[in-house]
């Protein structure tokens, strides 16, 4: 199994607002700079522990996950750590210029000597508001942008792209990716349609704990069937699963500190302030009612929830290995920095994981069930 660490810089302060968007008036320059530095303390530690990948994500107007352009953080990671895979679990294709994505990914791949894992995602609903993307067109834009990027990385002659959503009179991307024919690509598998798309196009499948274990297992089946129809067999290491972990010397201690720091609460930071709740609900309903929204997360864990993997190192390792087999994933993308935990507590949890859980996961091979 491969293990990835997601440590997006996270700006958190007791006065930082919740919901989306968070007003920029909360920004404290000193704390902002410190947040960036702290993220790199986490990456430093993960790199020293031997994590296989270091990952970043793309989110907009959201202090808890600072990464509007994940390419920038990825470039810093590439320069700082010479020997690890760099996973960009953006880019959100419907809201950015796809040629720019092709260029930035190729640049990252070239400057890292071929260590890029390139994500291609459709984004969270609220983020369609950030750059003025019509949610009704997001899926069709994603499909076209994906095909354009593939063409930009494979076509030996300069070309004109005459699309439905994109028109570029001259496309001739330099640098090209170092990994040929292209870097590994992770695409979101948030719906059966997108899981099948990933299978058909020989992409890695990206899943998150927000979908729930059973649904993830079903999406992996859809993915594997589509891949088989397209003439290839993915392994578990073609499936990435994002989850959160909290480790302490004993199960009791892990439970106590996870509750204390509200590690499992994913809803709190997303919940709009009361005065905006109704407006927010109306906007989300409008997006959800459009024909091509990303599948809404079934249930966002709220106050009192526990993270997906918590407990002593033994407990956490066993739970991960059992669930990896049940879902069929072979790349675990972990996050340790919760929105709430003090930095020192999160680092202690990460260090215990790195010392006692990580080697066991890396030594394990996840068997895939026979497809019915």
């Amino acid at each position: 199994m491969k293990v990835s660490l997601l440590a997006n810089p996270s700006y958190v302060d007791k006065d930082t607002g919740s919901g989306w968007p968070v007003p920029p008036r909360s920004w404290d320059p000193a704390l902002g700079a410190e947040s960036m530095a702290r993220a790199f303390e986490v990456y430093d530690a993960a790199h020293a522990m031997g994590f296989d990948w270091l990952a970043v994500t793309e989110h907009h107007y959201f202090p808890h996950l600072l990464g509007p352009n994940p390419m920038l953080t990825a470039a810093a990671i590439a320069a700082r750590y010479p020997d690890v895979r760099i996973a960009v679990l953006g880019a959100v294709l419907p809201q950015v210029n796809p040629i720019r994505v092709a260029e930035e990914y190729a640049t990252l791949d070239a400057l890292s000597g071929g260590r890029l894992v390139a994500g291609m995602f459709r984004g969270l609903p609220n983020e369609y508001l950030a750059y003025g993307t019509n949610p009704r067109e997001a899926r069709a834009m994603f499909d076209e942008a994906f095909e354009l990027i593939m063409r930009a990385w494979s076509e030996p002659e300069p070309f004109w792209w005459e699309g439905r959503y994109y028109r570029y009179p001259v496309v001739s991307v330099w640098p090209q990716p170092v990994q040929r024919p292209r870097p590994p690509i992770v695409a979101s598998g948030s719906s059966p349609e997108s899981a099948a798309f990933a299978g058909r196009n020989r992409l890695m499948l990206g899943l998150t704990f927000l979908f729930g274990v059973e649904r993830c297992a079903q999406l992996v089946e859809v993915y594997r069937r589509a891949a088989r129809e397209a003439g290839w067999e993915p392994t578990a290491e073609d499936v990435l699963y994002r989850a959160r972990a909290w480790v302490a010397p004993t199960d009791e201690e892990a439970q106590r500190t996870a509750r204390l720091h509200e590690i499992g609460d994913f809803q709190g930071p997303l919940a709009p302030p009361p005065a905006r709740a109704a407006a927010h609900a109306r906007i989300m309903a409008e997006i959800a009612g459009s024909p091509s929204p990303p599948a809404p997360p079934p249930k966002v864990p709220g106050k009192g929830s526990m993270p997906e993997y918590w407990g002593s190192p033994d407990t956490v390792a066993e739970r991960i290995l059992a669930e990896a087999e049940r879902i069929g994933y072979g790349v675990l993308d972990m996050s340790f920095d919760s929105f709430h935990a003090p930095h020192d507590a999160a680092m202690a949890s990460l260090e215990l994981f790195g010392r006692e859980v990580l080697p066991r996961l890396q030594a394990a091979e996840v068997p895939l069930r026979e497809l019915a």
Partner: protein
Amino acid sequence: MTVSWTQRSVDADGVDVRIREAGEGPALAILHSAGGPERPSAATDLLAARLRVVGLELPGLGASPREDRAQACARLAATMAAAATAAGLEAYALLGASTGALVATHMALAHPERVQALVLDAPAAPGDDEALRARLPELDLPTMIVIGTRDEPAASEAGREHKRRIARSDLVYVYDAGRSIAGDRPEAYAELVADFVVRREGHVVDRRSRVINP
């Protein structure tokens, strides 16, 4: 939009060539493909709204009498050039699809003073005609090669080879179009072709305004 097309026949080297025409403006001659002459379509109607469009039916196809000339692209090109002249065209842009693109290429080589811009729509691989392939670098006119992204990989390969050999050419991929680009994406096709006929190489410069409200 209703475009009224007129049909007639012209004599070209003793061959009866049927033509269909509509519209006003810069002249575009279209050679109907070897797959059979196309009826006026959404794409040709849109073209006729901006251009004087003259469709020339390749002899040996459709309702035309079968002719041995269809076998030899170069001789067919001479016939079609004569037909274009007989139809009243002096200088014109020329569009050919599939095998028709090979005939159009021969016409452009033989009559550089008349053929002023060339559109090759999903052209057949130039390797199918070795003599023609060797002469592609002689072409010195604005040329647009149009390929559908859903067409076979061989179509892209043929487009690429034309692009490499014709110095003044643009290679255009039309997203989500198969072999029949005009049929699959008529609006995109007509806009591409009409802009190219009117603006030649200048068509790469975008004139769409991004102003939302003044």
